[in-house]
């Protein structure tokens, strides 16, 4: 039996919360480095965001133990992992599976189609979401590959494995 099975609901929630906060601390240096690097390489993204550079976005990949909080202001660029139950204010919220969100960032999937299929949820300031989508869509190349490349060969291997698993699952879902 798993040790957490012995905990009461309050205890289990505490453990989940502690796990989430620990994950946030561990991943934060990587997120900060990745977002600065991508901001440096693709400054045109900020132009397309216009005044929405000052908006905050909560990106909620449902499988992750935390949410991601993006402030795309080039003067104070921030990309933080935050516990869901303590997420700071955001003008817009984008929710979906991790690999779907990654494919949308890389324009391997169409955002409108993901919205039509209900795989993607957006709420809050719709104009902010539309601007972010259009800004990212004008980026040439793969942001996911760039982010994975920060970790070198292991990062690229993890990304490739995630992609294979996601495609295999999607194929299985279609056959079911």
């Amino acid at each position, binding site marked *: 039996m798993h040790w957490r099975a012995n905990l009461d609901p309050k205890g289990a929630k505490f453990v989940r919360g502690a796990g989430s906060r620990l994950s946030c601390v561990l991943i934060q240096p990587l997120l900060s480095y990745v977002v600065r690097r991508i901001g440096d390489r693709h400054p045109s993204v900020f132009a397309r965001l216009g005044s929405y550079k000052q908006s905050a976005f909560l990106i909620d990949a449902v499988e992750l133990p935390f949410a991601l909080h993006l402030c795309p202001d080039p003067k104070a660029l921030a990309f933080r992992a935050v516990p869901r139950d303590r997420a700071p204010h955001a003008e817009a919220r984008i929710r979906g599976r991790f690999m779907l969100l990654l494919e949308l960032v890389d*324009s391997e999937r169409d955002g*409108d*189609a993901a919205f039509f299929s209900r795989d993607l949820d957006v*709420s809050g300031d719709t104009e902010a*979401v539309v601007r972010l989508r*259009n800004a990212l869509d004008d980026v040439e190349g793969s942001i996911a590959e760039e982010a994975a490349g920060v970790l070198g060969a292991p990062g690229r291997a993890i990304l490739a494995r995630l992609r294979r698993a996601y495609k295999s699952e999607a194929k299985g879902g279609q056959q079911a």
Partner: protein
Amino acid sequence: MSPGELICPAGTPAALRTAVDAGADAVYCGFQNATNARNFPGLNFTPDELASAVAYAHSKAAKVLLALNTYPPAGKVDLWRSAADTGARLGVDAFIVADMGVADYIARTYPDMRLHLSVQAAASSPEAIRYYCENFGVKRVVLPRILTIPEIRAIRKEIPCEIETFIFGNHGLMVEGRCSLTNYLTGQSTNMDGVCSPASDVEFIRHGDGTMSSRLAGFSIDCFGCGEKAGYPTICKGRYTAPHRSDPYYAFEEPVSLNLARLLPELIDAGVHAFKIEGRQRSKSYVRSVVSAFRTAVDDIRAGRPANITDLVALTEGQKQTQGAFASKKWR
């Protein structure tokens, strides 16, 4: 045989390059202002971006068509004239226009420039189309999506210009260029500001039971059941209750996309010169998939092979597709 030119959408420079690389014969796009009917946040081109885009397209033997297809408010024509001047200076291959004043300015100032009549002009009769040809030298008409193929064939025989028809994307049954539904709720005009359901007025609300409501300017447009496929938050595709209908119903049209892939041979035979893919607001992924699919299909037909038609239903609105009025006036 009609050349079956493929006219493809681009909302960003990256989408334009994607469209060209996927086999577009021409790409249509607009500036970041009210001069075009897809004036959406973060979309469209700066003059510098358009200059680079024209150079890229021309290097690959593709054309760039600049959409100036909104209607200037009375007395406020400077923005449209300036956009035409910039487009001409940058070497675009044609302007897509709807307003007679804009058409007249371009015809007089740039007499060698090709003019295409936008679907926003809603010219659907030989008399209307001939008027634009005779007075402004229009070389191509983009037909409204309300005609059957026999009707298109008949029109072709009575007009002196090329015909372009939509083949994929928005179903577009409203009298285009005349729809005021968005303006009624938001105060912004589809036809003059280029915004149908401006994003700043759109709100999606996810409820605890998994349903999702869409609202425009505070008015509920639809509520999608848990797992039910969704559509764009436009009034024309809303689901409403009414005194005579207790159950919510699509009063104007349903969230569904046009897909004429299987009608391509008949459209070519009817004399349609060019095929338009709708979707400047869509992603590079959409552009790549749809343009590639129709490039293959058109090439197959022109080579006398059975057309290889890719399934594009995953990209359609509401994940449903129709041949609309092109197949029958009784599509509903």
